[in-house]
């Protein structure tokens, strides 16, 4: 089934299985039903559980928190993640604080489903991906599914989680087909997936950079370089163990993120690996991220803006070339003899 259908499937299963699960958002009763991900929910569950809000994202988020104190598990849907910025006060000053601030007596099981746009000149305000912002603050978890299977598994896990989870959904995955069991299942939050095994270099990717890394790994294989590809899936809490294990094997790290660099998830991966597996690193890690400027509208500069498989491949070759040089050096030295 398609990625979008997997989201719909998970939403129906969660709402059928637990009367406390509701949908909230702006434009969710729109006949277009958030690109089809919510088709039929209004008909099936009615306006009390498919709660169309006015254009009041901040208040709606606060209502999710208030309802949560009574046991309601809200899925707050945003057509674009950029709009979540209107709710930062409720999300970071409130939802993220409720558990600790009241000594573990309150929990706010809310899911913030935020869709990321890209292309067709959407421009600077409709193409951001703020997973780094949400990954920074304690009390929030952040997941970024990249295939239909995880789209369902992570959404169900997010709904089951007792703390706020930001579920970041890239619109250009919506059409992707994948194997999705009809049965209810969870993709564990906080666990990365090794989606391709390799021995020379670890390619760690977030969201849309996962398919790019797979492409790059293919190309690298043809050049005799064996790349391991890891889909972080959860940007916080980050599955450092899985990543470190991979780097311990390969000794080389390239991190690809669909976001800006500074204080981003790619940098976090590099920092965490360097702290924990410094001795395993054979070369300087590299991050492939967005140029540090707004996302432009025009196709010509948009093309210059987004990095992809080619940049990842080049970075992988660079970190591996150093290995080869060292190998080379050693081998030549080994052959030396005599005083000349």
């Amino acid at each position, binding site marked *: 089934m398609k990625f979008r259908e997997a989201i719909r499937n998970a939403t129906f299963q969660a709402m059928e299985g637990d009367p406390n699960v509701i949908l909230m958002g702006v434009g969710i009763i729109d006949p277009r039903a958030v690109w089809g991900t919510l088709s039929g929910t209004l008909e099936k569950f009615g306006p009390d559980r498919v709660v169309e809000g006015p254009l*009041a994202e901040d*208040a*709606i988020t*606060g209502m*999710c928190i*208030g*309802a949560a*104190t009574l046991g309601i598990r809200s899925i707050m849907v945003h057509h674009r993640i950029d709009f979540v910025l209107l709710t930062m006060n409720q999300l970071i000053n409130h939802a993220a604080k*409720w558990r600790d601030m*009241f000594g573990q007596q309150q929990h706010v099981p809310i899911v913030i489903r935020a869709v990321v746009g890209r292309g067709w000149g959407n421009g600077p305000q409709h193409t951001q991906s703020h997973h780094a912002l949400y990954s920074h603050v304690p009390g929030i978890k952040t997941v970024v599914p990249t295939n239909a299977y995880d789209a369902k598994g992570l959404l169900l896990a997010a709904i089951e989680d007792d703390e706020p989870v930001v579920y970041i959904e890239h619109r250009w995955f919506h059409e992707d087909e994948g194997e999705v069991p009809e049965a209810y299942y969870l993709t564990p939050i906080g666990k990365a997936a090794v989606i391709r095994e390799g021995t020379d270099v670890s390619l760690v990717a977030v969201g849309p950079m996962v398919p790019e890394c797979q492409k790059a790994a293919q190309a690298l294989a043809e050049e005799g370089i064996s790349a391991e590809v890891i889909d972080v899936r959860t940007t916080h809490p980050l599955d450092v163990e899985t990543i470190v294990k991979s780097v311990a094997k390969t000794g080389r790290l390239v991190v690809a993120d669909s976001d800006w660099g500074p204080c981003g998830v790619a940098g976090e991966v590099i920092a965490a690996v360097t702290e924990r597996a410094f001795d395993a690193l054979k070369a300087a890690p590299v991050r492939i991220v967005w140029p540090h400027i707004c996302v432009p509208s025009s196709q010509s500069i948009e093309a210059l803006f987004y990095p992809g498989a080619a940049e990842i491949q080049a970075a992988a070759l660079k970190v591996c070339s150093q290995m080869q040089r060292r190998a080379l050096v050693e081998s030549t030295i080994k052959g030396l003899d005599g005083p000349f």
Partner: protein
Amino acid sequence: MVQASPDFKRDLYYRMLLLRKAEESIIANYAQREMRSPPHMYIGHEAVAVGVCAALRKDDVIFPYYRSHGWYLAKGGDLKAMMAELHGRETGCSHGWGGSMHLIDIAAGVMGTSAIVAGTISHAAGAALAFKIRQQDRVAVVSFGDGATEEGVFHETLNFASLRKLPVIFICENNQYATNTHIRDRQAQPEIYRHAISHGMTGVRIDGNNVLGVYEETQKAVDRARRGEGPTLIEAMTYRIFEHCGVFTDYDLGYRTEEEAKEWQAKGPLEQAKDFVTEAEVAQMSADIEAQISEAFDYARSSPFPSVLFAQGVAQ
């Protein structure tokens, strides 16, 4: 207007006295630096929390703002746990994590408090939505100041609550100041209740220092809410006697006059209710309350401090 029974009036007085004396005990002991938390005194506002909560059931819920001591106690929050929280102890109502601005007592229906102005307005509407979804006849109440109504979320929430006819009651405690700025320097049209009307819901302005009046107006709002007739905004006119945050008066700052404060004190909550009780009754109530308070302080002071940052199951 219904005839309130003498017992009921006495009870209202007793509760207001409890709030007053509890805070006076905080003021009296604050200099000992054992209560390390910024206290926003409720003294002068008591009739609002007591009058409102008198019209609520135990299973109704409240979402007070940071000026929350009074609300916590009026709704039946545990006095010992409150004093322990102010002392930062493990036995505090938030286990020492919240402090004065973050009192909570879920069993009593005190669901959450915020140090962010207007932070809990939408929470109450969310709780009311939960009641509506479950077809329960419970009511959610939120309290906030006059300044909070300047935050956009106040209007966003009124619109939604009115649209969905949610069982929520918005209590605006209009003491005319936001910190030390007068409402005339902040609001173009300072009759706050009128915003309710432009959002298609009931809005009233009342004397917030008249506990019976507050009770009666709230009772009407509660009845409407339980009948599914939607939310109400009650603008309760009152006055803060102490500084915005802290245990002193601040007439020296010059943003208000001592005369103004004195005038309000003359028509204060306890003053307006003094014929609810005899002097003998007040003396007896005082003795009873003071005993509870010293017990609460002993409890707080003898309680252990929290000692771990990460509770069971919280990822490090």
